């Protein structure tokens, strides 16, 4: 088995640097410059994996990103292992450890191979048809389907690698470093334009760079030598950035492109440490030149998937670039001249091709003549009808084609081989062009979709073979000419260029090659990775699928990790032939980004862990941390949730905190509430328009609670606004709503009422808010601001004072969200922790207890105060909340006023806010639980749901708020809260549970 198929002449592989690697546990050697695929082939290993559905043995088929079969798992470290890596792309490095996927126990003996023999039972749509009934069995089916789904194994631990994002702006981006890309980059750079050239390989020059053939000459030297000089000359341009190993992933509108640069994937593991693994480039280019090249097509015949069957251009690259023979008994099968180039390359390396099977009647092109002169045997007008060999092709059978190409005639003749090169012509890589919004046109003469120059988005151009130009002279001359107008060049360094190249004249294309057997008895593979065959496509058409997008999904053609780069065209061709449609009318499936798979690491870059999202902390945060607060996320804020003491759980802590706040004093960090500074001569009028209640008569120094609606009449936000001066207010909003409220107010100011003289400034971060509540709050505040008269006369509820704490200006509002006598100290944030500590010291003798959001919620629920976003959900009007008192009925207008008497908002059976008491006072309801009246009448009518629920230590019973249909009228009504294992009896009550007369505000 182990053989060395390396020949010794080579320019590109460093045969002095030997690299050891492992494949399926076997230790092997390759050289610097090899890909995993070329190194495996040099070791005579073709079988690398098993196919997805039938577990058929599969080998390396290509030499690039279009590879469908040779996808391997790299490494076995649970955090670093990488599935679905194309062996044809990964560069060999010391210690590379690769293994085959989708096989068990091994690629050589795979139990799943039995599927191959069951394949007649596994047609297209097998899963859809088989697992439909009985429906209750789905969960059992799913287990097995999930086990057989997917290729490779995902890492199980988090990725320790570093990934970067980088933005880049340039005049010209050139995608692709083949001959047309090199010419483009040089023309652009020479004009002085800021240019980036990217190519996904480790070397530039595409396929021309190893095209050592006297038939191709540019300015009298062989094309490869000419190109090598050109590449060398690129170094002279400081305004040209060349990025190798960089694959363009996506081309979005306005020339915004994403490219993934691999920085360490070709290095040995030791050399990678501390380096960025991959970088995602976000490029905004003024102009884009696409030079993405083309991909050779396979041919579709029975058993065209055996290991050893390789694209002829790949055979040529393996011998010319890597110095690797893909076999010792090679034959070729073609419909065009490309295979002859491979044959000549092999001949020059000492491998004589056994036979070339050509479906054409003849060809008189230069390259074919050269092959014939070398004595190569060509079977004209013939087709391969079948192949043999399980884990490696052993032989193939040839028959003569009928004149029209629809049938084969005569007898089969058998040829032995260990490698069969196939060539079905070329497909321009138009993925990027179409991603950007370009439209394709179909060229009938050689069956290719190419960019339609009339439907190309502006500031981009496709050049070279991705534009459907396949001959060297066309590529070079047209690229230069097209770029002259694209880049507005008067002349170029390439003017007068002379090119000699062979001309291909005869073409013959047959999408599905005929066989002497009925199609049901053949296996002509279209999508090698997903195991869909020509007969699956035909079955789909018979079953009524007409749209190519439907056929694609039903047969899974083109849905593997390779996205069908190799043979989507054949599927389209077969559909067109079968249905008698022109391919141009049929169109293509949609090309979506990314062009090749992107790692999740590259997509997220550095935005992982604590960089995933930003966190806002109040100025007093460190004190909370020191005092063992548990935190709750509110928007982006970290808010203290509760402060457990001596091993308390949340319930115990909240009960203690709530009791302390009502019995003596509690302190809350309320800094996260949104604060908007409002100034300007029309401030009062502005507040009149945005709040439901009246503001013009609010005295300076007084505070007022306001409710803000959306234009649809639904409650949007609430908070207390204080009049600081004649034309100066400070508004508070909910924590989560702050940003949206500011945006909404700005929107109205700028677009509907630009005549108003009002200026809004967010000061949420600039001021911190410390709230002290409870019967002893006044005594504590008196210790902190001894000069301030705190009498109810001088400083009544709903008023504010400017004062100083330790020479620092502060505003103190006497407002209350708990129903207790309460103050809110607003102070510049950099002094906030200091003032907080002063409060704590002053409050020591009164058992001043810090409390968090949970206690705050409990205390306000005792008072029946709503929390917008918890008790409201954007479907409740003020009236639904039993807050009709806050609607300024005499006001001419305010946002949402008109909606309050729409036919829907005046319905009496809307859901309305009510209080709930449970029959068993110890039973605490679950928030979100449904409320019903009759559980026996099916279907059970849901009357509403619980919005807030707590055990009140101050009332020693469970309390809840809920929204219930027609709730306002149902006071005293008994309802049921059905839970999983019991029904809880509740009674509808008033929403205020505690201190209904508001006596405590002035206690």
């Amino acid at each position, binding site marked *: 088995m182990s053989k060395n198929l390396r020949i010794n002449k080579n320019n590109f592989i460093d045969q002095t640097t030997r690299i050891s690697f492992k494949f399926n546990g076997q230790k092997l050697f390759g050289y610097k410059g090899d890909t995993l695929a070329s190194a495996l082939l040099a070791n005579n290993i073709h079988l690398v994996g098993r196919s997805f559905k039938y577990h058929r043995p599969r080998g390396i088929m290509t030499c690039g990103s279009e590879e469908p079969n040779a996808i391997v798992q790299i490494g076995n470290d649970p955090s670093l292992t990488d599935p679905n890596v194309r062996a044809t792309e990964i560069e060999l490095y010391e210690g590379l450890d690769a293994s085959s996927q989708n096989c068990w126990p091994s690629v050589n003996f795979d139990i799943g191979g039995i599927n191959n023999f069951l394949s007649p039972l596994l047609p297209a749509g097998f899963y859809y048809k088989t697992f439909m009934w009985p429906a209750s069995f789905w969960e059992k089916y799913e287990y097995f389907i999930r086990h057989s789904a997917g290729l490779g194994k995902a890492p199980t631990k988090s990725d320790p690698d570093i990934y970067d994002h980088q933005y880049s702006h340039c005049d010209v981006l050139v995608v692709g470093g083949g001959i047309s890309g090199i010419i483009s980059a040089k023309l652009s750079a020479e004009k002085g334009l800021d240019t980036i050239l990217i190519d996904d390989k480790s070397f530039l020059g595409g396929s021309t760079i190893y095209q050592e053939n006297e038939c191709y000459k540019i300015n009298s030297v062989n094309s490869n030598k000419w190109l090598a000089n050109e590449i060398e000359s690129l170094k002279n341009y400081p305004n040209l950035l060349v990025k190798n190993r960089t694959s363009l992933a996506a081309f979005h509108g306005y020339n915004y492109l994403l490219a993934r640069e691999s920085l360490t994937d070709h290095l040995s593991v030791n050399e990678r440490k501390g380096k960025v693994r991959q970088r995602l480039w976000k490029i*905004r280019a003024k102009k884009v030149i696409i030079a993405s090249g083309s991909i050779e097509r396979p041919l579709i015949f029975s058993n065209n998937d055996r290991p050893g069957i390789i694209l002829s251009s790949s055979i040529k690259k393996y011998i010319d670039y890597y110095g690797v023979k893909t076999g010792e008994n090679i034959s070729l099968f073609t419909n065009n001249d490309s295979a002859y180039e491979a044959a000549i390359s092999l001949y020059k390396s000492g491998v004589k091709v056994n036979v070339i099977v050509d479906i054409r009647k003849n060809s008189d092109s230069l390259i074919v003549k050269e092959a014939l002169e070398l004595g190569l045997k060509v079977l004209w007008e013939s087709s391969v009808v079948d192949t043999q060999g399980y884990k490696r092709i052993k032989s193939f059978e040839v028959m003569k084609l009928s004149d029209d190409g629809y049938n084969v005639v005569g007898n089969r003749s058998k040829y032995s081989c260990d490698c069969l090169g196939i060539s079905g012509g070329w497909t321009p890589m138009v993925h990027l062009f179409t991603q950007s*919004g370009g439209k394709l046109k179909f060229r009938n003469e050689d069956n290719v979709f190419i960019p339609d120059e009339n439907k190309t988005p502006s500031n981009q151009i496709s050049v070279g073979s991705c534009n459907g130009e396949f001959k060297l002279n066309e590529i070079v001359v047209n690229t230069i000419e097209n770029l002259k107008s694209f880049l507005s060049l008067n002349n170029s360094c390439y003017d007068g260029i002379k090119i000699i190249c062979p001309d291909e004249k005869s073409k013959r294309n047959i999408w599905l090659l005929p066989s002497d057997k009925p199609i049901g008895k053949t296996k002509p593979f279209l999508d090698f990775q997903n195991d869909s065959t020509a007969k699956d496509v035909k079955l789909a058409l018979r079953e009524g699928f007409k749209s190519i997008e439907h056929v694609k999904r039903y047969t899974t053609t083109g849905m593997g990790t390779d996205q069908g780069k190799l043979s989507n065209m054949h599927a389209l061709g077969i559909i067109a032939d079968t249905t008698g449609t022109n391919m141009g009318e049929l169109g293509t499936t949609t090309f979506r980004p990314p062009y090749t798979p992107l790692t999740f690491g590259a997509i997220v870059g550095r935005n992982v862990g604590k960089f995933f999202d930003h966190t806002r902390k109040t100025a007093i945060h460190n004190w909370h941390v020191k005092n063992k607060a548990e935190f709750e996320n509110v928007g982006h804020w970290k808010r203290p949730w509760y402060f457990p003491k001596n091993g308390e759980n949340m319930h115990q802590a909240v009960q203690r905190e709530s009791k302390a706040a009502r019995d003596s004093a509690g302190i809350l960090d309320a800094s996260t509430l949104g604060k908007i500074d409002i100034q300007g001569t029309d401030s009062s009028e502005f507040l009149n328009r945005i709040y439901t209640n009246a503001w013009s008569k609010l005295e300076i120094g007084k505070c007022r609670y306001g409710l803000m609606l959306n234009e649809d009449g639904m409650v949007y936000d609430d908070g207390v606004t204080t009049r600081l001066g004649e034309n100066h207010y400070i508004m508070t909003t909910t924590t989560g709503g702050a940003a949206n409220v500011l945006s909404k107010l700005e929107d109205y100011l700028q677009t*509907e009422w630009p005549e108003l003289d009002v200026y809004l400034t967010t000061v949420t971060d600039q001021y911190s808010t410390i709230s002290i509540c409870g019967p002893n709050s006044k005594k504590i505040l008196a210790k902190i601001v001894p000069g301030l008269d705190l009498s109810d006369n001088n400083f009544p509820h709903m008023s504010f004072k400017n004062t100083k704490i330790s020479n620092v200006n502060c505003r103190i509002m006497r407002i209350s969200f708990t129903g207790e006598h309460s103050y809110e100290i607003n102070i510049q944030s950099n002094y906030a922790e200091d003032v907080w500590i002063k409060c704590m010291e002053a409050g020591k003798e009164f058992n001043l207890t810090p409390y968090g959001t949970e206690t705050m919620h409990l205390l306000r629920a005792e008072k029946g105060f709503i929390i917008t976003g918890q008790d409201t959900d954007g479907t409740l009007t003020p009236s639904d909340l039993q807050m009709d008192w806050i609607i300024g009925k005499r006001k*001419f*207008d305010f946002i949402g*006023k008109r909606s309050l008497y729409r036919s829907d908002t005046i319905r009496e059976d809307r859901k309305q806010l009510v209080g709930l008491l449970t029959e068993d006072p110890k039973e605490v309801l679950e928030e979100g639980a449904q409320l019903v009246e009759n559980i026996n009448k099916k279907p059970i009518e849901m009357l509403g749901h619980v919005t807030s629920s707590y055990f009140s230590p101050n009332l020693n019973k469970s309390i809840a708020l809920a929204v219930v249909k027609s709730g306002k009228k149902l006071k005293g009504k008994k309802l049921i809260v059905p839970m999983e294992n019991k029904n809880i009896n509740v009674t509808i009550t008033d929403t205020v549970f505690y201190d209904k007369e508001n006596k405590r505000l002035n206690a």
Partner: protein
Amino acid sequence: MFIINCPYCGERDQTEFSCGGEAHIERPKQPTELSDDQWAEYLFMRKNIKGVQFERWNHAHGCRKWFNMVRDTSNDKIQAVYKMGEKPPVK
């Protein structure tokens, strides 16, 4: 992702902006005079056409100014950008 020429700041990436829906729908001066149907027309009905559309945009992560934009929704080509209160270009 398109580039928007903010009338106050110049060309910026789309990620800095947020779209505020159809432009030139004025809030009724006297909403109380309107029937339910007329109010609903203002409140709910918005065009969502394939082709040239007049839109409100906000430079949310920039100057925070609102402005109007004419965009072809079929190809995202921006045909005009103008300040609030300025006359829209003729279709």
